[in-house]
């Protein structure tokens, strides 16, 4: 269960203060697929950063498995990002000079998984997301956008996280590929029992979600 209470994030801009996230309360049950929709600048990405502990909130709490992430300090934060959460980005953010396989193995290396185990797991995940073995050694530049996003999904699942945060996962894909990716995410969420929070402005994706949150000017509308 993911539970967010009165979460706020403010930025200083000259003399004024911008409230990017303004007192958000939400809860997502374990294994559910939730969508956060809103226009550009509504605070979606900032909210995702806070949920993934990439940034610190001004105030409020984020509870995952009854632990408040906002109270975590350095090493615990790193450990949270390593084991509890996985990221999927609009522009994939794969490491360009590593192969698809090496990209998926990377989070496991940081988590201390031995070389053989991480190779096996990475190969399995790539197969699961539909990347055939002949493409495992290809670098991202030699994969299509859809394939790169599949590799990114495999990477996000590498350390069996409880929460996957997806920032516009289909934003750079055509609608047909986008649907395939979302279906893939939903099915993986079920098999891996992972909670997924996806930020999108695609209403089609929102319809597939178990729960949808509308964000405007840093506040939830419903």
């Amino acid at each position, binding site marked *: 269960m993911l539970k967010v209470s009165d979460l706020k994030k403010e930025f200083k801009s000259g003399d004024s203060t911008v409230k990017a996230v303004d007192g958000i309360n939400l809860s997502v049950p374990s294994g559910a697929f939730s969508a956060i929709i809103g226009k550009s600048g509504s605070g979606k990405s900032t909210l995702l950063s806070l949920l993934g502990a990439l*940034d610190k909130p001004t105030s409020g709490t984020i509870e995952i498995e009854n632990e408040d992430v906002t109270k975590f300090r350095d090493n615990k934060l790193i450990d949270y*990002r390593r084991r509890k959460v996985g*990221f999927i980005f609009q522009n994939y953010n794969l490491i360009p*000079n590593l192969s698809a396989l090496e990209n998926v193995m990377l989070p496991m290396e940081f988590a201390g998984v031995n070389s053989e185990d991480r190779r096996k797991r990475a190969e399995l995940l790539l197969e699961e997301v539909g990347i055939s073995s002949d493409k495992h050694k290809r670098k991202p530049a030699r994969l299509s956008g859809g394939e790169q996003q599949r590799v990114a999904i495999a990477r996000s699942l590498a350390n069996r996280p409880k929460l996957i945060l997806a920032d516009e996962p289909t934003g750079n894909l055509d609608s047909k590929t986008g649907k395939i990716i979302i279906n893939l995410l939903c099915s993986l969420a079920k098999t891996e029992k992972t909670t997924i929070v996806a930020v999108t402005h695609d209403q089609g994706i929102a319809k597939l979600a178990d729960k949808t949150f509308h964000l405007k000017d840093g506040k939830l509308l419903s």
Partner: protein
Amino acid sequence: MGMIGRGVKNAFRNVIRTVSIVFILAISIALVLIMFLSLKAVQAKIDSVKGSMGNTVTVSPAGVRGFEGGGELLTTSSLNTISALSHVAKASGTLTDRLTPGQNTSLTASLEPGSFGRRQQSSQTEGRMPNNLSMPITVTSTNDLTNTQALNINELKVTSGASFDGKTSNNIALIGADLANKNNLKVGSVFKAYNTDITVAGIFDSGNRFTNSSLLMPIKAVQKLSGQTDQVSNINVQVDSVDNISSVQTEIKGKLGDKADVVSSIDTVKEAVKPLENIKTISIYSLLGSLVAGSVIIFLTMLMIVRERRREIGVLKAIGASNVNVTAQFVVESLTLTIMSSVLGIIGGFAFSNPVLKALVSNSISTASNGQGPRPGGGGFMSRLSGAMPGVQNTLRDIQAVIGYEVILYGILAALIIAVIGSAIPAYFIAKIRPAEIMRTD
């Protein structure tokens, strides 16, 4: 692929940039090595020149040279004063005199006058040449027979009999081999000098015909017999270290004032090694400059790479990399660049150290010889030096950088220093990059 593999692989992400950086850095490392080798070679040469000149200070009466000039001789008390000075290892006094065959000695000179001797005699007697011209016999007396430098001979080999104690006042002598032959003298033979019986204590061979035709006697005996009580014609001072020569020289001048000429080899040595000292200074500055340049090159490169890969660093942090993980990867990348540069730099250092050193030495010595223009008395410093110390100029030119295995170690050490300095500040910037950087839209 682990962190090391990624770091190494990253070093080749942009081949043109990598080649350029490696090339420039290799030049910098080669310069570090060349300057380091030059520094070592020059220091060794300076030490060798200083060592070969000895730690000697010579004190002679002002205005006196050999048997010419005018003034007052030194005294035994001057010798005692100098002996008591700090840093003086040994002070040997000598008193030189001449015996004239047929007048104050029974000996016959073993040296033939020849045309040189006749010309000298002629100038001294205003052209009136004696019928049976004979060379005088030189008597060198000393308080220390072990100090051959004070006796102006390279080696004193006693071929029969025994050496004498320089402190004695007995009427004994070591007689040169040629003089002994000429006069049929053996150990224990007695001859007349200063109207006194002198016993032959031993016969020596110095390998030099002039000294083999002379006598060596205890200084006290000659002072007494020649009527030069307490007088000393030369004092040879051995200083404990080259570094103390100047201070001892100054102290002696202070004690004896203007009645003595105090000369040491240090002034000549100092001037002789001046070009090398200049090269040493150039080498030190170039060494530090090259090291700094190398560090700056790798620092700027790494800084540029870190700035370029801000988003990638954000990704690594977002998927669980710690600052240490990311920094280590960049340090490996930096080390890869510097190690490749070191290999090239070491090869360059090997190839160019001697040519560069020779060019520096040659240029520096030529500048010293010619650059200061003519001096009163004629000649630049090298010409004076060549006159004063024949062969020193060639000795200075004969300098060689010794390339050993330790050079490779120094090369690697230089690379490590460069890599560590070059990575330290980028590492700080890496730590400052927030994982949220990844959410930034370009």
